[in-house]
C-alpha cells in the first residue's frame, strides 16, 4: 500500500483520538451537554472502512459518529461546533452530538434511535439501484443494534432486491452495560447475516489494514452488482458508553487487555524508532496494528519526525476546532423555524 495512504490513516486515527478526548474535556467544562458517546479504541474501524469509500458513496451512522464524520471529511471545526450547539455546527446546532449531518459529503446522519440506520441506508441504496448508479452505502451499527427488528427487516429487503449496502457492525461487545453473550443468542455477529444469504465476514477491528482491505473487497463486490455485504468488525471502546457511564460493569482487567492492543497508542509507541524493538514488535501477535507500523517502518515510511509532526498537526486542528466552536454564534429561534420548514419554499398551504 502507498505510503501516503498509510500516513493518512495514521493521521486520521490520531485526529480521532485527540478530538474525542478533547470533546470529553469540553463536556466536563460545560461546553457540550446532552449525551456524548465517544469512540476511543474503535478508530481503526472508522478509518479502515471510510478510507476505502469513494466520495460518491453514502455514509449512515449512529449516535457514536463524530469520528465517522471527521474521517469522512467533515471539518473538525464544524463537528466541534455542532457538539457545542453552535450556528456553524454541521447541523446548525439543531442536532448535536448524536445528529451530525453533512449532505455535501454524503454523510447522511447520526441517528439516536438504535436500529434506524438500517432502513435509511437501505432506502438510499434503493434509490441508487433504481437509477443504476455505481454508488454504495455504508451502514454502521453496534452489536446491540443487531437485535432491533429493523436489522432483520432491512437486511431481508436489501438482500431480496440486491441493494448496494455494506453493513458494518462495530462489535465492541457491549450494549451499554450488557455484554454480548447476555443480549444475543448467537454472539458471532457475522453469522446472523446468514438468515438473509448476505456474504459476511469477521475482521479484526484493531487492525486498520485488515479493515481497509475487507472493506475494499466488499465494496468491489457491491459495485459488481452482487448485492449487500456484511462485515463484523471486532473492536472495543475504552471509555464508558457515554460521558454519564463510568463503565463499572466491565472488569478492569478486560479494559486493560484491550487497551494493550489499542490501535492508536500502539501506532504511536511503535513509531518511536527504538522502542519497542523490531523483535518486540514481531512478538506482539494479537495486536495487528503493530503490523502496520512495523510494515511502515520496514518500508521506510514512518520516521520519528512524521509522527511528531502529525501529533502536532492534529493537536492544532483540534485546538482550532474548539476556538472555532467557541467563537461561533448561537443559532436563534428563527433559524430553528427555518430548519423545520426548510422544505416548504414558496408553497401555499392554506
Amino acid at each position: 500500500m502507498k505510503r501516503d495512504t498509510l500516513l493518512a490513516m495514521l493521521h486520521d486515527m490520531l485526529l480521532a483520538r485527540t478530538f474525542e478526548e478533547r470533546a470529553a474535556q469540553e463536556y466536563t467544562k460545560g461546553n457540550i451537554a446532552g449525551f456524548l458517546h465517544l469512540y476511543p479504541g474503535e478508530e481503526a474501524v472508522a478509518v479502515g472502512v471510510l478510507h476505502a469509500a469513494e466520495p460518491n458513496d453514502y455514509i449512515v451512522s449512529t449516535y457514536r459518529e463524530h469520528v465517522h464524520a471527521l474521517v469522512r471529511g467533515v471539518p473538525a471545526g464544524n463537528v466541534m461546533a455542532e457538539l457545542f450547539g453552535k450556528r456553524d455546527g454541521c447541523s446548525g446546532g439543531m442536532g448535536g452530538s448524536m445528529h451530525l449531518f453533512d449532505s455535501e459529503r454524503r454523510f447522511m446522519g447520526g441517528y439516536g434511535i438504535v436500529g434506524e440506520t438500517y432502513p435509511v441506508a437501505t432506502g438510499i441504496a434503493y434509490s441508487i439501484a433504481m437509477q443504476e448508479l455505481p454508488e454504495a452505502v455504508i451502514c454502521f451499527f453496534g452489536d446491540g443494534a443487531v437485535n432491533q427488528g429493523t436489522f432483520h427487516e432491512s437486511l431481508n429487503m436489501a438482500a431480496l432486491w440486491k441493494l448496494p449496502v455494506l453493513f458494518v457492525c462495530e462489535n465492541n461487545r457491549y450494549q451499554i452495560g450488557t455484554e454480548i453473550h447476555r443480549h444475543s443468542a448467537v454472539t458471532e455477529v457475522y453469522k446472523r447475516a446468514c438468515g438473509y444469504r448476505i456474504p459476511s465476514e469477521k475482521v479484526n477491528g484493531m487492525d486498520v489494514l485488515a479493515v481497509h482491505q475487507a472493506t475494499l473487497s466488499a465494496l468491489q463486490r457491491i459495485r459488481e452488482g452482487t448485492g449487500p455485504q456484511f462485515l463484523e468488525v471486532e473492536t472495543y471502546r475504552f471509555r464508558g458508553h457515554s460521558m454519564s457511564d463510568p463503565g463499572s460493569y466491565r472488569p478492569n482487567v478486560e479494559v486493560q487487555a484491550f487497551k494493550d492492543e489499542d490501535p492508536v497508542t500502539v501506532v504511536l509507541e511503535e513509531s518511536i524508532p527504538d522502542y519497542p524493538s523490531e523483535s518486540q514488535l514481531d512478538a506482539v501477535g494479537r495486536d495487528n496494528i503493530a503490523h502496520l507500523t512495523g510494515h511502515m517502518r520496514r518500508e521506510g515510511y514512518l520516521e520519528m519526525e512524521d509522527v511528531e509532526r502529525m501529533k502536532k498537526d492534529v493537536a492544532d486542528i483540534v485546538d482550532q476546532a474548539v476556538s472555532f466552536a467557541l467563537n461561533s454564534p448561537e443559532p436563534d429561534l428563527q433559524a430553528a423555524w427555518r430548519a423545520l420548514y426548510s422544505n416548504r419554499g414558496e408553497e401555499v398551504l392554506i
Partner: protein
Amino acid sequence: MADEIPVWKALNMAMDAEMAADDSVFTLGEDVGLYGGSYRVTQDLYARYGEWRVRDTPISEGSFTGLAVGAAMVGMRPVVEIMTVNFALLALDAIINMAAKIPFMSGGQFPMPLVVRMPGGVAKQLAAQHSQRLEHTLMNVPGLRIAVPSTPQDAWWQLRQAIRSNEPVVLLEHELLYFSKGPLDTELPPLPMHRAVARRPGNDLTIVSYSHMANLSLKAAERLSAEGIDAEVIDLRSLSPIDWDTCMRSIQKTHYLLVVEEDCGFAGAGAEIVAGLTKRCFYDLDAPASRHAGLDMPTPYNGTLEAASIPTITSIVAAARQTSGSGEPS
C-alpha cells in the same frame, strides 16, 4: 363536465399522473404491485412502471417506511402505502422520529418528499385491531402534514400535491370512501392543499368534520334543514395544519360549534379542534363547543355495537340539535 368516479380511481389516476410526470416518484407497500393494491389504488401501475417503481414489500412496515425516508433524503419521491393505518403503529418511529425530524435535526439540509398513504377508519366489522385511528398521534408531530380527502376531487389533487411537496405528508384515506363516487374534473385548478371548505352553507350551527364523517355530517345537515336547523358543514380536508380562518368565519356567523369525528373522543382530533376554536372564538360562541366522537372503547366486532360506537347520521342530527340549543337538554 366532470365524470363520476370512485375515490380509489381518483387516487389511482393521481398516482399515474405523477409517476408519468416524474421518474423519481415510486410507490411501495404490501401487494401494491402484482396484486394491484388492497383497495386498487395502485392498479395497473406495476405493468406500466415496473417493479422498481411499484415495489411489493415483505411485511416489514417499520423498515419499508424507513427505507422510503432514506430514499426521500436523496431526492426520490416515495409514496408508501401502509396497507391499513392499523399497521402504522409499527412504522411510527420512521414517521415521527425520522421523517418528521431529519430536516430539522440536520439544520435543514435534506428534503423529505415522502408521502405515506394509509387506508383507515372504522370500516365494516374489522374488529378492534383493524379499526385503529391515529389522527391525534400524527397531529402532535411537528414537521408532519396530514391530508384527509373526502371526495374524488380532493383525493385527486391532494395526493398530487402531497407527492409534489418536499415535506412529509400523511394521507389518511377512509376505507369506506374508496368505492363512493363523485365528480372529478381534472381541469379544475386545485385549492391549497390544507384549505378547509364549507361543503354546505348555513346560519344556525357550524359542523366541523373531516373525511367520511364530513360526508355523514352533510347528510345530517339535510335532515336538520327539514327540522328548520340550518347547519353549515365544514370539511377540514387537512388535520395539520388546520385552516382556522375558515372555521372562525363560520362560527362568527352561526355562534354554535359541533365537531364530528370518528376517532375516540378522549384526546382525539376533536380535542384540538374544539380547544383551538374555543380559544379563537370564545366570545362568539353562544354555547360550549361540542364534540360528537367515537366512544372511548376499542371497536367491537359485533355489527350493531360497532355502529353504536361511532357517529351515524342519526346521532349527528341529535348532537347538532342539542348543540344548537334545539334539542332536549343533556
